[in-house]
């Protein structure tokens, strides 16, 4: 018996989605894998080309518009803008990762203590949250950068300190719910300490929320790092940061060197946008109401 080919194709087409993950998850996984691969490649390239060929000043080739030899053009010292941009992105990634991890750690500590260490701790934490939410992020960033005397430390501390309250609020609410779970009550009646319950029971349970929170924090961290560097209070001018590239480009816009500002900004936008989408997809996955879409 021969089956008609188009029928076979039809049954196959039907069978595939049923057997595999729902398409939203699949897309997310593929997107995440591609992103990570692209970023690893980026990092490899950045570290291979670091200080070498592309960043050498070449006064014969300065201020060239985009061409095949230099896809993003060259700057006023003849440095290749593609290499500079990639290095800037790599630096942004590293700083953003560190800052958002630090912010997540603060949020986890604050949220869990607020939920578990009694009313006083809860009050103190909410008061701190209100305090940090009462200032515009950029003002806090400028203040902390000033206090640290500028530089990487100021950026990391500033970004970590400005972004924890919203995640901490979420973690606190989740931990409050978990606190009354049966297994936590049993654990408590067995005489386990609060810290033990916190680290052994609640933290593993909250890990997905923390990871998504970290992922959602990441694009903001990158944007704020670039912003504070751009206004001159972040990473020092000798670093190949996107903020530095863009703030230097301001002096040459009048001379018509538009490619100095446009392409590094597009690259930053793509990086931030990709992580933003990924974060939202991941949080939709965690939300039981939306995870099956």
């Amino acid at each position: 018996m021969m089956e008609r080919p188009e029928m076979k194709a039809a049954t196959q087409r039907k069978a595939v989605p049923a057997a595999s993950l729902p398409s939203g998850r699949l897309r997310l996984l593929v997107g995440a894998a591609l992103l990570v691969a692209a970023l690893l490649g980026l990092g490899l390239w950045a570290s291979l080309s670091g200080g070498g060929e592309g960043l050498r000043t070449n006064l014969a080739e300065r201020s060239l518009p985009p061409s095949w030899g230099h896809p993003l053009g060259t700057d006023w010292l003849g440095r290749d803008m593609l290499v500079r941009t990639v290095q800037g992105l790599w630096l942004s990634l590293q700083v953003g990762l560190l800052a958002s991890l630090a912010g997540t750690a603060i949020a986890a500590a604050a949220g869990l203590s607020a939920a578990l260490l009694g009313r006083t701790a809860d009050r103190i934490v909410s008061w701190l949250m209100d305090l940090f939410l009462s200032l515009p992020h950029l003002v806090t960033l400028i203040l902390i950068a000033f206090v640290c005397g500028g530089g990487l430390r100021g950026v990391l501390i500033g970004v970590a300190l400005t972004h924890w309250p919203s995640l901490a609020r979420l973690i606190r609410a989740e931990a409050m719910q978990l606190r009354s779970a049966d297994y936590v009550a049993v654990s408590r009646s067995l005489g386990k300490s609060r810290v033990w319950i916190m680290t052994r029971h609640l933290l593993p349970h909250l890990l997905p929320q923390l990871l998504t929170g970290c992922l959602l924090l990441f694009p903001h961290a990158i944007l704020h790092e670039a912003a504070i560097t751009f206004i001159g209070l972040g990473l020092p001018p000798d670093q190949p940061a996107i903020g530095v590239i863009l703030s230097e480009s301001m002096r040459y816009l009048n001379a018509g060197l538009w490619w100095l500002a446009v392409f590094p900004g597009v690259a930053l936008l793509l990086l931030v946008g990709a992580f933003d989408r990924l974060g939202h997809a991941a949080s939709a996955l965690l939300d039981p109401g939306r995870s099956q879409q």
Partner: protein
Amino acid sequence: MEKLSADIQDGRRRGAGAEAAQSASGGEGIKGGWGLYLLGKALRLILLLAAVSAVTFTLVSHSPVDPVRAYIGADILRVGPEQQAQIAAYWGLDEPPLERFFRWVGALLSGDLGTSMIYREPVADVIAERFASSALLMAAAWLLSGALGFSAGIAAAMAHGRWPDRLIRRCCYLLASTPPFWLALLLLTVFGVALGWFPIGLAAPAGMAAEEVGWLDRLRHMALPALTLSVVGIAPVALHTRQKLLEVLASDHALYARSRGERGWALLRRHGLRAVALPALSLQLAGFSELFGGAVLAEQVFSYPGLGQATVQAGLRGDVPLLMGLVLGSALFVFAGNLLADLSYRLVDPRLRERSRTS
């Protein structure tokens, strides 16, 4: 915007009606509820400002940036240690931090914020003067982004699932990831440098006395920073409005209206608009913090002499009194936004008033 204010008016009327019904049925008087509410808010504000100033002062006094050096600037080699000590004594920097803090608070309570080191003017004057130009900029951007975002959100929700919806959503995601200062650079390059439509900086043409600057010139200089700020602010309002309107359109009363044959604009106007206008308004009000942050960046790019630029300069050049004043000022600004958002809800939603009265 007229629509929005009309909604608030309407809300107030409805709110007042509910209040009257409440007091008639034996509840507390209207005055008591509002008085307590405002008293609580004022108390919160005082506590907040006290905390912000204490924390800021502690932080600033641990900064490695030496205010005397920052004050002298490039002339540091020509100023001897004795003179430096004199300057420190003049600013009161040789006293212990705690004493300085209480002196500063004492002066603050009498309305004196100190003297800015870089502008050599009282901090209060610097802030007042710059707030005027920043406020103009932020107000324009606030209105424009609110109107655009609100309309975009409604358009997206009305076309739910079709291409306009997808397009608007994509644009919003894109805008949400756009670095504001880069957008400013882009607008500057396109409209300022390439097309030459707008001037590329400052609040007025250079070399012109302040009285001669007409409002048209001011407007031209404000256009690009305001446009930057508005574009940055569109995405949150649009996405929020879209979400809210979708919820409203999926509700029972909208379904009932549909079953009676109401469609499109009439359905939106009668059943949707009022329900989504208030959330959008309060989101915009609560977004004062983002607005200020955006203004810092936009003003920096366009050298627009506003509060944001002053904040950056204060941070870069170590002007501690100005920085402290600006921190307090921005806290006040954000608080005002949140208070207005809260008030707008209370005016409309009697349940919120109930809760605060019973607790």
